[in-house]
């Protein structure tokens, strides 16, 4: 036989038929004998029946429409992503979204930083132009350069003006020279000998191609004792 405390703890399960047959018989016997527990049981039963009897609220029309709209959109979305193409498309969109989400926080600072850097570089660059100077021993890195005269020991005794085409090898040595037709091709033998001696004492910077010394022709014009003019 159960006591009141035990019955009190099992009345709810007893209402729902969730007790063993033996427990059910004990509870029924107790309720028949105990007015307090019988009253409690009656009250609990009234509570249960009252809760079950609560009217069901109708679903508002706008909620029904909203749910239909939601279902329609979701069904369309499912169809859009169905199949292999849909799976690839979905993966691509997810990757795109992931990259966008990753880059968005840094996009503005990065763009601002780039603009600031370009602006500051433009301002500062003008101030640094003065220190950019040509060094006399620089190796020219242009694609092709002509030979240039490094030093000359002038040995022409008169003030005549002579123009020569000189062939300079890759070590800066004169291998050959000619006097162009339009610049006194009919020079005397003595003059040619003196020019050859002078050129022997003249050193050249060889022509270059992509920074490497190569042989090449250069036009040189002598003007008296102290002047020399070179045309590549």
């Amino acid at each position: 036989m159960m006591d009141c405390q035990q019955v009190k703890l099992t009345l709810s399960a007893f209402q729902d038929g969730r007790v063993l047959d033996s427990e059910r018989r004990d509870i029924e016997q107790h309720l028949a004998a105990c007015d307090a527990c019988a009253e409690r049981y009656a009250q609990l039963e009234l509570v249960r029946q009252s809760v079950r009897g609560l009217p069901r609220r109708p679903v508002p029309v706008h909620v029904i429409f909203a749910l239909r709209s939601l279902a329609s959109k979701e069904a369309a979305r499912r169809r859009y992503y169905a199949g292999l193409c849909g799976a690839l498309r979905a993966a691509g969109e997810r990757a795109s979204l992931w990259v966008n989400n990753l880059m968005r926080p840094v996009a503005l600072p990065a763009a601002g930083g780039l603009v600031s850097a370009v602006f500051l570089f433009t301002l500062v660059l003008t101030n640094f132009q003065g220190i950019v100077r040509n060094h006399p021993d620089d190796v020219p890195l242009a694609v092709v350069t002509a030979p240039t005269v490094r030093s000359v020991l002038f040995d022409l005794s008169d003030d005549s003006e002579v123009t020569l085409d000189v062939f300079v090898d890759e070590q800066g040595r004169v291998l050959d020279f000619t006097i162009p037709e339009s610049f006194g091709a009919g020079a005397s033998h003595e003059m040619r000998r003196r020019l050859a001696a002078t050129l022997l004492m003249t050193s050249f910077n060889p022509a270059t191609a992509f920074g490497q010394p190569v042989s090449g022709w250069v036009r040189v014009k002598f003007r008296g004792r102290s002047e020399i003019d070179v045309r590549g």
Partner: protein
Amino acid sequence: MPPVDREFGPAEEAAAAHWPGFGDEEQLLERLRAGDDAAYEALLERFQEPVYQLVCRLINDPGEAGDVVQDVFLKVFRGVGSFRGQSSLKTWIYRIAVNEAHNRRRWFSRHRKPEVDLGGEEEGPDRLERLSDRGKTPYDWTLNNEMRTAIEEALEGINPVFRSAVVLRDLEELSYEEIADILDVSIGTVKSRILRGREALRRALIERLEPARGLSFLPQTASD
């Protein structure tokens, strides 16, 4: 003699899992995953009303219940692809509804009052009552009944944890096993919560009805 518990036998389970036009639950899920409009329609037809009732009883705010129900079904639709059938579709949807209602109620308990208090000159516990539209809708007035009102208010007043169990058991008439699955607790815990919930309701109703009406709350038979 107490009523027999409404347990689902094999035949009832099969009937509950049967979806006219679709076959069993698994076939319905396949159609949902394929984006079949009719499957979505069938799902709403079966569950929109019980989910709305459940959410209404759990958050005490019919205006918010509509939003919560939409959130519930959005999660259901989005999650149907990853639903593996560890539980029935019904308990899965109810579980989402209970969790969503609890989340919404917790959110309100944290945020609603501070929002109302912004810029307010008057203070006091009744201010929220006056600002909120707590008036009865025409539907409420039509069905106004003191007993019903008393039951509803008593239901709103009990601990939400116990209320969930009582609502699922007595309003939605789910079995203990289904409730345990939905609330993710043991059957013993379900029994305890239903017991304590009904006991709290009983006490609240005695306090409310007996002084005013002099109701004895005693069982009466036709011969009395």
